[in-house]
């Protein structure tokens, strides 16, 4: 008798039973529960609040002469601040950007043409390019040269040669901020972050 009843149910909804429905919903809710439990474990590995809090740096630009470059530390990384000479600015602006690997106009990379502010971390594998000190190799475009695998950057910090795929990041750009994370608080001071 019971067998017959069971068969009837099967025939009414071929391939689908109440049991299937219960299994699926229970499974789905269980799955969501497991995922929600695992997430905190994974999230502990993400940057902690104190690490995030370290993330603004104020810089006084007044002592930086034209042609000088200054390195400051922001979120544990070097930020390159270059007080560019008129020639450097012109060289950066005159490039035909369609020739570039990561096409970007110089004006998209600076807020004031004299001040180039970029993260000093090679976009290849994270070494710190040379060029901040007088006497450092700066590569053939007068910008920066990465000693690790030979990437060459121009006076706008754009990639020109070597294995790096992208231009040197603007502060915050690598962390997917929509615009560069620094602002001029006066003519000669900036806050990064």
């Amino acid at each position, binding site marked *: 008798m019971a067998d017959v009843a069971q068969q009837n149910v099967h025939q009414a909804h071929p391939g689908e039973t109440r049991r299937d429905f219960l299994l699926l919903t229970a499974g789905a809710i269980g799955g969501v529960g497991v995922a929600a439990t695992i997430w905190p474990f994974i999230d502990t*590995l993400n*940057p902690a609040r104190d690490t995030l809090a370290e993330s603004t740096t104020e810089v006084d630009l007044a002592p930086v002469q034209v042609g000088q470059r200054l390195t400051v530390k922001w979120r544990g*990384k*070097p930020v390159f601040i270059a007080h560019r000479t008129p020639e450097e600015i012109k060289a950066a602006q005159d490039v035909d950007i369609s020739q570039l690997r990561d096409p970007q106009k110089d004006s998209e990379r600076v807020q004031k043409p004299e001040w180039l502010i970029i993260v000093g971390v090679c976009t290849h594998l*994270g*070494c*710190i390019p040379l060029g901040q000190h007088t006497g450092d190799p700066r590569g053939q475009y007068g910008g920066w040269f990465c000693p690790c*695998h030979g990437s060459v950057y121009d006076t706008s910090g754009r990639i020109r040669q070597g*294995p790096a795929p992208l231009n040197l990041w603007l502060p915050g750009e690598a962390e997917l901020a929509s615009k560069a994370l620094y602002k001029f608080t006066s003519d000669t001071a900036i806050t990064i972050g």
Partner: protein
Amino acid sequence: MADTRPGATARIIRWIDYRLPFVQFLNHELNEYPTPRNLSYWWNFGSLSGIMLVVMIVTGIMLATQYTPSADLAFDSVERIMRDVNYGWLLRYLHMNGGSMFFAIVYIHLFRGLYYGSYKTPRELLWIIGVIILLLLVATAFMGYVLPWGQMSYWAATVITNLFSAIPVIGPGIVTFLWGGFTVGDPTLHRFYALHYLLPFVIVAIVLLHLVALHRHGSNNPLGIDQKGPQDTIPFHPYYTIKDLFGLTVFLLIYAFFVFYAPNFLGEPDNYIPANPMQTPNHIVPEWYLLPYYAILRSITFPILFISSKLAGVILAFSSIFILFFLPWLDTSPVRSARFRPIYKRVFWLLVIDVIALGWVGANPPEGIVVTVGQIATLYYFIHMLILFPLIGKLERPLPLPSSISAAVQSGGARLSGAGAPLAKP
């Protein structure tokens, strides 16, 4: 009348074995375990790897009792181990050079497998488990190398974790997640330490699986033919325990030579400079055992189709190990041992030369001829794996195989009378 009852120890063992067949198991797997009678010294490297794993765990735990995993203190704590802790220098040099020795042994073990076709039926899973151990070993050694927090530690960690940034879209997020911050830093060091402590024990578990798989069908042997009966085998103990011990002694002499006379020969002097996140050393090189992968990584200086050169390099460097998983099916020859494979026997050495060439490339700055050699050697590696292995198996005419291990041993120089008879325990 003499007392014929078993002694007290025997009775205790019997009591335990009846409930947990542990002694029985050890006896079966390590004492009477039938082993091909013709194993050469190339078969020593398996047990040597096992011993090195134990050495690494013992020295590692002792180091861990003195080491501090914090960006501010790590470097100094290692220097303290070197200068102030009693025999700390010995522990550290044993652990440091032990890593190198471990890899040397594992690589010889792996190439032994390649030469004698040890990855073929029915040992495919045994081989695959071995490749998994290699991957874990690479990860463990890499994270260990970061712990002393010298310049090389720091920049090796930076460059290697940055490999993941090559993954499109989610790459940069993954890297921040791995670091637990915006650069390699204190949180990174802590988690690497936790994993460096954990992974060796995972390796122990997987080594046990490796042994279970090994003992299912027994060792391969230089002839690459199956055991056909008791006349082909000898008990593991005392024949191979003694041979393994002899090999161990020779190995320990070499190990001790490095530890006592050239402890820093295999390392990089830059790692005695404390980590400086604001300055990259001029030449970053990984430890010697990772050089070939590093060479492959750097050899791709051009995009492949729509894949950027950076991502392509990363994919190929990982593939160079992953491809080994498929070797049992890439090699189409039914004959295991290269002894009976006239073409493979020679081509095998090309792979050895190729890997050494890659090592050389990885150690040198990527300029001029180094880049070209690197690109050719990388190309050859994949041609060898993907084209030569299947092709040679099809084209080659293997030499006739001996009818059995004992028959071959008998005709091949061993003129002792009764060489074909089973060897019992002495």
